């Protein structure tokens, strides 16, 4: 049984906005759709940018990757601002719970020395990699074409600074509540031979003007970095008695799984486009191959250093991730 509450019902003359009716038919639209689809201005821009008079304010020519209709891509997570921050608030709570636990049991200082070195020498410096990834993502958020894409990139940029801050908090905890270890980690990022390839990769990525290529280049590097540090080493750490490494790694690995959903969906939209699909396929294949060569070169010294410290088969894992990337891109673009 349930009670029957009578309320006034007025049949609304309209279900949603015109641009959504045109696209999806006369049906109520979701909040994701109302807040995302067609929002980027389309025409009659008044002036050209002083800093780039060759382009309009929003211009598909900012990338060689094209979609006939940029809104053929939508975020499979359907993130608009409210669900995005809600999801990230929950992630932040989980990270905080882990850090509190590590702190209360003094777990980081009980790490085996070699794993403590992996964290201090290699993991914590990745906060600079994340910070670089934030800048690259901001460029995509500004110069990308179509709100469905740029919205994902803007949230990704915010995620990356969040990741950088989470790694920094690990560094502070590892440094006994001080910023000393963060200082060391920065020196390592700038000076350690094992990290210079990765730093160079990030710096060169800052100069990539084509946002689509920048996205692919960053994604390829991300897949290698995340697979090595937050999947492969997660397992190895548990085997090596460094469970607290794994407690940290789980958060970044689950963030990355969430993040890759939109990147993968965008690749699929690129190659499936009835008009631009063929060109996009070629570009995706060549950009990925190039990016993979560069990223492998950058990361092999990192993996080698990991293996020196903990002998975890990091080098082999890196090559195997590269093979997976080659195979997935081949499956998409063949």
């Amino acid at each position, binding site marked *: 049984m349930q009670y029957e509450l009578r309320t006034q019902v007025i049949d609304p003359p309209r279900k949603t906005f015109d641009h959504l009716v045109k696209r999806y038919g006369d049906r109520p639209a979701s909040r994701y759709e109302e807040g995302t689809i067609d929002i980027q201005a389309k025409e009659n821009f008044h002036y050209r940018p002083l800093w780039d008079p060759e382009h309009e304010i929003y211009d598909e020519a900012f990338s060689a990757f094209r979609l006939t209709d940029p809104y053929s891509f939508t975020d499979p997570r359907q993130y608009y601002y*409210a669900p995005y921050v809600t999801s990230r608030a929950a992630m932040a709570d989980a990270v905080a719970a882990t850090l509190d636990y590590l702190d209360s049991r003094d777990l980081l200082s009980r790490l085996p020395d070699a794993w403590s070195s992996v964290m201090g020498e290699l993991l914590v410096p990745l906060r600079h990699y994340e910070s670089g990834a934030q800048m690259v993502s901001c460029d995509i958020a500004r110069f990308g074409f179509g709100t469905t894409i740029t919205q994902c990139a803007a949230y990704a940029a915010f995620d990356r600074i969040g990741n950088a801050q989470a790694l920094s908090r690990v560094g502070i905890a590892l440094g006994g509540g001080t910023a000393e270890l963060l200082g060391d980690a920065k020196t390592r990022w700038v000076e350690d031979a094992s990290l210079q390839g990765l730093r160079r990769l990030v710096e060169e990525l800052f100069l990539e003007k084509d946002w689509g290529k920048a996205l692919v280049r960053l994604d390829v590097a991300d897949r290698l970095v995340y697979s090595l540090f937050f999947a492969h080493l997660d397992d190895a750490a548990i085997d090596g008695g460094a469970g607290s490494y794994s407690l940290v790694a789980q958060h970044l690995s689950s963030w990355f799984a969430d993040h890759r959903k939109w990147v993968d969906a965008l690749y699929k939209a690129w190659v499936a486009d009835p008009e631009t699909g063929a060109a996009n396929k070629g570009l995706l294949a060549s950009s990925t191959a190039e990016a993979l060569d560069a990223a492998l070169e950058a990361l092999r010294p990192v993996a080698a250093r990991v293996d020196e410290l903990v002998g975890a088969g990091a080098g082999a894992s890196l090559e195997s991730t590269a093979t997976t990337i080659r195979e997935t891109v081949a499956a998409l673009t063949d």
Partner: protein
Amino acid sequence: MTIAPKAPRKLTMKQRYEALTRDLDWEPSYVETSEVFPYTEFEGIKIHDWSKWEDPFRLTVDAYTKYQAEKDKRLYAVLDGFAQSQGHLSLTEASYLNAMKLFLQGVTPLEYQAHRNFAYLARHLNGPGPRFAALCQSIDEMRHTQTEIHTLSNYNKYYGGFHNYLEQHDRVWYLSVPKSFFDDALTAGPFEFLIAIGFSFEYLLTNLLFVPFMSGASFNGDLPTMTFGFSAQSDESRHMTLGLEAIKFLLEQDEANVPIVQAWIDKWFWRGYRVTALVAQMLDYMLPRKVMSWKEAFELYFEEQMLGGLFQDLAFYGITPPKHVEHAIAEKEVLSHQVYWTLYQFSHAAAFTTTFPDAEAQSWLSDNYPGTFDKLYKPLWDKEARNLEAGGRHFVRGLPQLCQVCQIPMLFTEPDDPTTICQRHSEYRGEKFQTCSDGCQWIFEREPEKYVQAWLPVHQIYQGNCGGPTVPDVLAWYGIQEGDGGEYKGSLDAAHWARWHDAADHSHIGSEA
């Protein structure tokens, strides 16, 4: 096993924030810094030490997401409850929604533009402190875009004028006023954008541009918009402190920055002030229940708080009140009347309605504008009253000439003579250009190569770029439907409003097991 550190020096809040944000930066060595940040030189601004930037707020990503998620939960609960209970019927009057139509068509797309360009600053400013502050603002602006759309989406289901706001923002004549304003800022360099939007729009003029809509909502039973306004308040106060820090930082970095910043303040004050013309008429004519007059708002929020407060502080750096501010002050008695009188006559080509101010409204106008209303504007309405009696509501069938800079029809009068239309002419590359005021003319002549590019809606209609040569052709191209514009009395909105209220009187709430 690692040995526990000896007596660690715990970080203060400030050190911790710096370690978590600014310290993430490093000096590139594999590529040139000037290649990484290619846009921060050409404007002539000199920054010697980016580390001198004082973080205007210290919010880490985890704190931000938790706080914002909580606020959104509350806001969306209000939106859902309002929609479910047919809350729109408790507005003062359906005509109130004209203010919100103007807001969705004119302001919401600007929030989005701000989102995109703060992402540009979050990438392209050299300092990590300002980059992170810009990133927070960028995603805040996305929040405002979306919460505004979601707030007003429910009204769109029942009332005209909202349904095609995005396309209209790109096409319709009066909306090229806010669009060209923001396009102007987006196409400027990063520092000018900071002064244009971060400082002038978000700080100097926010109480005249943004807040009047929220106050109007609270006076007219628009609970969702009012709740949105309160919910955006803490974001806006962060944006205001960012704007203020930006200007102080630029001024403190190098004395040579002072004249550049002064010129931007001069330009963006006038540019933004001209956009407030639309707000002025909204406050004085569109709200069924008034909040305050434009004149009172201008005196309080601009003359007292900005000229009397902010600019006293900025004088320390050698900054003076904006050029042409005296013309804005002189206009406060006439601005809203002139603008509404024009919109009244052109609303058949707009996506909002207008109507004749009734006796009560006119007496309010007369009380609030004792020096001008009875003398200058009441006679116009008296004449219109006679037209109405004769069954002839007045609409202008021609097209107005627009100012080359602000794109408002040439309706403003000479600063010292409210009966003579002000027209300024400039020549550039052998062509003549019209502007509406000394302020707009000065802006034009500073950067004529920019303003000659403007997409002027009336020119475009004449050139055949707007759907066809006749008014119905153009309205179809605007996506304006029956009931969107014209006269409010007898409109579709007014008819629906009456019918739904009639039905509401007979409704009852019962509960049955």
